Every structure is written in structure tokens, then in C-alpha cells.
């Protein structure tokens, strides 16, 4: 393993996730460097999305899902049942594979979260909306129609709006579950540019099936296989000189 100078933003320790009797994620210990992009790759069903979703306790929603182990964020083990998940999730933004803007106006999509978390002043909200839209390079495209439905936007715009929505509640971590896999190449490129921009402020974890994307956007890459973390290293090392044969096989397309 190469050395990483930056300190970690958060880390998992022996994290396992079960769906009923089936163990989907097996004792994974990983640290996530502050303000870097970590890509999780691996074939479908390898546990990478499940792992991602346990970082903000989203698996709580799935009946029969059970977590063992620890995830430490700011000296807090978020897997502890006493954790206030509502407050936790405010600190961790999430973006899904399919864009899922709220069925509200573009403005409301972003202002809604901030207002819920206590910002009532109209001017302040306007500022938050503009800032979030500028950060996601959406402002110029939508500034004249903020009160129109977010559902009228294109898929790529919707996805950037969803990123803007998470950014607006000021998280420190962004989780992205295949954020570009439902988008066309142009929108995908925009999302990737955006990720490069966002990592100046946020620690980002991205699940992707697209190896080129992982190579382009991430600083570190983790290869998952059958619920195990096979290899985790600098992205460059993973893609040029992996130490495990199965990693090499996967990235060169021999399986998966």
C-alpha cells in the first residue's frame, strides 16, 4: 500500500452487512481520506452499493438488513443504534443512480432541505439556492425558471440538481451510487467534471461500473468481489499495477 499523506475523513472497521442470513458485505475495514474521491468497483452483487448505503445507514430502510462492525465519522460510531440518523444524514449527502429530484420546483428542491434545517430567511435561502446551483454548474441553465418543476429538466440536469440538493445542506461527505450510469456521455462528462470540482470541499465515495470513470475521477480505488474487499490502493496503482490477480482480471475485462 502506498502512503497517503492526508488524514482520513472517516473509516470503517470490520463492517459486515447481512440481508437475512446472507452476508452481503464481509468485515470490511477501509479508510477514506479527507477531500478525496474513492471509487468502489466490482461486478454486480459484490456488495459495493450495500457498503456505500451503510455509510449513511440507508440500509435501515431495507427489512431484514443488519449491520455489524463500526463506521467512525468525527469520533462517532454511526453504526451504534443510539446514533441520531436524522442528524447523521444531514452530514452525508447521497446521489442515486436514477435522478430523483423531488416533485417540486427547482428552487424548492434545493431550498427545502436548508429550510428544514432552520434557515427561514428568504434572502439567505436565495443565496443558498444560487450557490448550490453555481457549484453544480446549473445556475446559467436554470436561473430563469427556478419556479418551474424540476421534472421538466433533462436527466443530466436532474442529476446535477440532485447533487446541488445534497450540497445545499452542507454535508462533509458525498456518497454517489453510480451517479452517471443512467446518463448520456455528455451529461456523464459534466458529472465527472463536477466531481473533480466538488472534491475540493467534500470527501466523495462513488460506486461505478465504468472502469474508465473510476480511473478518471478517483484518487483511490477499492475492488470488491463477493462481499470482500479484495484490494484498495491508489487508483493509479490499481489500474497499472494491481497486486491481486482477480483485480487485474476484472479491470482488464476478463470477468464481471
Amino acid at each position, binding site marked *: 500500500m502506498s502512503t497517503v499523506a492526508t488524514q482520513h475523513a472517516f473509516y470503517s472497521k470490520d463492517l459486515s452487512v447481512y440481508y437475512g442470513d446472507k452476508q452481503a458485505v464481509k468485515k470490511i475495514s477501509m479508510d477514506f481520506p479527507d477531500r478525496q474521491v474513492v471509487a468502489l468497483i466490482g461486478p454486480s452483487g459484490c456488495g459495493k452499493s450495500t457498503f456505500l448505503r451503510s455509510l*449513511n445507514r*440507508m440500509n435501515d*430502510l431495507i*427489512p431484514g438488513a443488519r449491520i455489524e462492525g463500526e463506521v467512525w465519522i468525527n469520533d462517532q460510531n454511526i453504526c451504534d443504534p443510539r446514533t441520531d*440518523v*436524522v*442528524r*447523521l*444524514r*444531514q*452530514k*452525508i*449527502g*447521497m446521489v*442515486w443512480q*436514477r435522478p*430523483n429530484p*423531488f*416533485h*417540486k*420546483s427547482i428552487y*424548492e428542491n434545493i431550498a*427545502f*432541505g436548508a429550510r*428544514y*434545517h432552520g434557515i427561514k430567511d428568504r434572502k439567505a435561502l436565495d443565496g443558498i439556492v444560487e450557490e448550490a446551483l453555481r457549484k453544480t454548474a446549473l445556475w446559467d441553465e436554470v436561473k430563469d425558471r427556478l*419556479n*418551474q*418543476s424540476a*421534472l*421538466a429538466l433533462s436527466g443530466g440536469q436532474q442529476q446535477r440538481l*440532485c447533487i446541488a*440538493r*445534497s450540497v445545499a*445542506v452542507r454535508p462533509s461527505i458525498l456518497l454517489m451510487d453510480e451517479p452517471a450510469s443512467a446518463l448520456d456521455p455528455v451529461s456523464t462528462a459534466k458529472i465527472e467534471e463536477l466531481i473533480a470540482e466538488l472534491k475540493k470541499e467534500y470527501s466523495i465515495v462513488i460506486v461505478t461500473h465504468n472502469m474508465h470513470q473510476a480511473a478518471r475521477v478517483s484518487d483511490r480505488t477499492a475492488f470488491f468481489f463477493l462481499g470482500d474487499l479484495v484490494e484498495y490502493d491508489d487508483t493509479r496503482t490499481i489500474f497499472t499495477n494491481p497486486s491481486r490477480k482477480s483485480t487485474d482480471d476484472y479491470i482488464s475485462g476478463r470477468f464481471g
Partner: protein
Amino acid sequence: MKAKTIDRIMTGVIVGVTILIIAVLAGLIGYLLVRGLRHISFDFLFSPPQTIRAGGGIGPQLFNSLFLLVLTMIITIPLGLGAGIYMSEYAKPNRLTAFIRLIVEVLSSFPSIVVGLFGLLVIVNKFGLGFSLFSGAMALTVFNLPLMVRITEQSLRGVPREQKEAGLALGLSRWRTITSVLMPVAIPSIVTGTILAAGRVFGEAAALLFTAGMSSPRLNFSDWNPLHHTSPLNPFRPAETLAVHIWKINSEGLAPDAAQIAAGASAVLVITVLLFNLGARWLGRVLYRKLTASK
């Protein structure tokens, strides 16, 4: 070649069945309207019925039907929404909830005359509420409530899971996610379903025979104090609804124009239910636009 022939035959069958259904429906509504519309007039809609002489109206009955509907909805909507939200968002999938769901299904398909008898024995006699609008509303609640629960539950379940996750991932509480993220998406279909259920309540007769009663006191339409006995707004007075009136006048009406009155009242009933249906669609669309800022 063969597959194509079969395809053509089956298409023909399906089109035929559809035409048949439309024909039956059009015939039924047409018959009711042709027979009834002639008899509908301003006077007919607003004047009280006559027992022996011709020329009676359906004013109090129409009012009773609408008032009973409002009463029923006041009871049903909060309960139905609450239980529906619970079933879809809070209840864990286990045997108990499966059992509750089964009961809800059974309850909603109960024969309404049985519900009426239950109302007579329990609500009217046991609880001593007598033949009253309130008893009628309770009886109607018995089979309207399950419908309401199911409508709410299914509307909420119809909202994509990612919407709910997006709300929770933003750090919203579960309750806030339901009210601010899920409900705006689900409300149009809840409203549509509720109004359609209301149509059934409006046309119900059997469950009301023994609960709301088959007669009205002489109503004083200038007295709107709900506590007065002759006030139309008094929920504890007996009240004959339009559907019950049709049944009664057809089976034991003494007025010489009983048949025409029944026909006219039937047409009014059908038109009102039709208006409910159209209104439901319209309101559903308008609400969705308002709540979601879409065009």
C-alpha cells in the same frame, strides 16, 4: 401466418368485448337520463316530497345525501389517512400486518345490508344513537374506511422508493419525509380515490335503511343551529337519503307520480356520481400541479 391470424381474432374479440361494455353502460345511463331528465326541474330539486298528492320534490333527500356524505368523510378521512400512512410507512412486514391487511380487504367487500344490520344492532340500539345521520355515517364508515386505508396505502407505495430515500438522506425526519416529500406526490391519487369512494357512499341505500332511517322530520331550512331538532344540520336527526328515497318510493310510494319521481331522483343520483368522478380527476390534476410546480 398462423400467429397473425390468431392475433387478428383476439384483437377482434377484445374490441368486441369493449364495445359491448360501452354499449351496456351507455344504454343504462341513457335510459336513466331519458326517463329521468324530463322530470327534473328547479322545483323538483328543492321542494319537499308529497305523500299522497303528485308534484313532490326531493329537496330534503338531496340535502341529506350530501350532508351524510360530508359527515362520513369527516370521520373517514383522518382515520383512513392515519391508518394508510401507518400501513405503508411504519408497519413492519409480518404476520400481524398481513392479517390486518386481510381484514381490511374483507371489510371493504362486506355486503352493505349486513353492515346496515350491524349498525342497527350496535350503533342504533346498543349505543342508543337511534335512527340518525350520525348512525348512518358510522355505518358508512365501516365499509368506506377500509377503502380509504387501501387508497392511502397504495398511493404512498406508488411513490418511487428513491423519493423517500432522498428525503431521509437529506436529514429529514421520517414524518417530515412523509408529509413533505411523499404526500405531495401521493395526494392526487388519494384525492381521486377518496372522491370515487364518496360516489359509492352517495349511492348507498342498504346500509342506511336501518341506521339513518327512512324518514326525515319536517326540516326548517332557515334554522342552521345544529342543536335544534328541525335544523337540517342536526346530525342526530333521522334522515332519508336520495338512494333510500328511491327505494322507498318505488316499493311503497303512494303518490300518483311515484314512478316519475323515482326516475327523476335516479337521474339526479347518477348525474351527481358522474360529477364526482369528473371532479375527482380535475381536482387530482389541479392539486398535483399546485403541489409540484409542474405545468
